[in-house]
């Protein structure tokens, strides 16, 4: 079976004047439909660059990104991104932020009433319909990120890309949002790729964890399959041997084999 999303021998080199720096080298990965993949690695290893390559916001130097066997090299709503800092437009309300995406993607397909229902449905999914008329400045960081997720989901993407979506949130809010993401995934069975630097988050949410070596010329060091049954509950997993083993494997990769030397 051909993979749903295939990263085929991707290299990425940034060029600034005469200085070249190879950020990513020979990235190969196949992702199946409905899978949740986490990409973890030390800061500066090119995780975000990799996500931008998949999103099409950055161009590959060589190799290719194939979605359903078709090469993609420009951004598009079928690969929706949840940005690290929410990226909501501050002059629009919560509802308008989502409707901007919905009207653009479904403008010709759905009627006005259908689009309204779809916007409200997605706000319901992230439990944000109560704040539909608020502006981003009036809601908390966690709420903004929820709206960011709703906006991305509302594009009905083939792949949902999340760039350290909970990195800027406090631990309690982060746990709430992780639960929400798991719930949404249980309902929609959508494909997700998530960048993270949080080991627990990676193990809790993903089917496979892609561990990256340190840059420059970072590549995929190991891929760990997390064989925990779903639905997963964080409290039950605290003492689960399989959970602990997966956690240990990731920690060992990050802190034994690929210690980040520059981090003091």
């Amino acid at each position, binding site marked *: 079976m051909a993979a749903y999303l295939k990263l085929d021998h991707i290299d990425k080199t940034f060029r600034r004047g005469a200085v070249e720096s190879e950020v990513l080298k020979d990235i190969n990965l196949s992702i199946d439909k409905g899978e949740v993949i986490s990409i973890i690695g030390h800061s500066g290893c090119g995780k975000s660059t990799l996500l931008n390559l998949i999103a099409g916001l950055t161009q590959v130097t060589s190799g290719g990104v194939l979605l359903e066997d078709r090469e993609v090299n420009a951004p598009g*709503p079928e690969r929706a991104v949840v*940005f690290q*800092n929410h990226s909501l*437009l501050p002059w629009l309300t919560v509802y308008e932020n989502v409707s901007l*995406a919905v009207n653009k993607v479904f403008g010709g397909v759905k009627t006005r009433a259908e689009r309204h229902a779809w916007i409200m449905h997605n706000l319901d999914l992230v439990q944000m319909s109560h704040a539909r008329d608020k502006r981003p400045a009036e809601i908390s960081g966690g709420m903004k990120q929820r709206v960011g997720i709703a906006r991305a989901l509302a594009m009905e993407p083939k792949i949902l890309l999340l760039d350290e979506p909970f990195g800027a949130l406090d631990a309690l809010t982060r746990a709430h949002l992780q639960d929400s993401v798991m719930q949404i995934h249980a309902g929609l069975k959508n494909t997700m790729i998530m960048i993270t630097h949080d080991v627990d988050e990676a193990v809790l949410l993903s089917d496979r964890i892609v561990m990256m070596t340190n840059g420059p010329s970072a590549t995929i060091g190991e891929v760990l399959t997390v064989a925990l049954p779903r639905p997963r509950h964080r409290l039950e997993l605290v003492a689960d041997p399989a959970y602990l083993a997966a956690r240990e494997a990731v920690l060992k990769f990050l802190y034994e084999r690929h210690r980040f030397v520059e981090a003091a």
Partner: protein
Amino acid sequence: MSIAAMKTDTTTAATAVASAKPVKALQTRVTARLGLMLRSTAVAVIPPLISLAALLMIWQIAFGRPGATLPPPTQVWSEAKDLILDPFFINGSQDIGLGWRVLTSLQRVIVGFSLSAVVGVVMGAVVGQSVWAMRGLDPIFQILRTVPPLAWLPIALAAFRDSNPSAIFVIFITSIWPVLINTAVGVRNIPQDYRNVAQVLRLNQVEFFFKIMAPSAAPYIFTGLRIGIGLSWLSIVAAEMLTGGVGIGFFIWDAWNSSRLPDIVVALVYIGVVGFVLDRLVAGLGSLITRGTAAN
């Protein structure tokens, strides 16, 4: 104040059927609010009144003696009373109230400034978006914007062979630079995040302009417009002094030629007040439109 008083009346009437005690409580509350309102108005109005009175007094003392080169306030009042009291009289084609003259000048400013606002925002957007347009055009803009308004007038007169379009052109060419340059800076400062959102949504150029660029750069654009309207008003007076015809600028020049100094003083006050109102108008419009943008 009258509205507040009316409110007291109706509320008292409505509650009169109930007992007398709450009515009294309400009355004291309303009087307290009224007092508060009066006080805040007084705080805003009294200090400028005092400084104005002091200014007039110094002026009177400095130029009140016989043989002074400039007229004191009392002389301005006695000789230019008609200009002060009635801005809209018409006693003949050349003898009209200052209100009419200001309106004529304002008409030119509105035409010239509207042109520069539209052209400035569009060109600023292009220069802000495209690195090559910026590299090519920015040095030229930086040089042209330092040219004083009146230096353009001879060229404009030669090109248009008429005073009215020339005056409008001077306003246009003076006020376009701050609009253009501020818009360009605003567009260049659109956060990469917003651009990424636009790219993922595949917004086209037109959608990007209206949905992302204009709202995101709006605070910068309005800063430019506010500087621009100020410069327009500055240059119209200067331009009209040279081009003649009806207008507040020419009125001053005419008054100077016929030695009517009190009239000039009144005209200066008119110009100051109108300039202030124009600035406030654009600033108010800006804060109304950019309500949501500045936050976050």
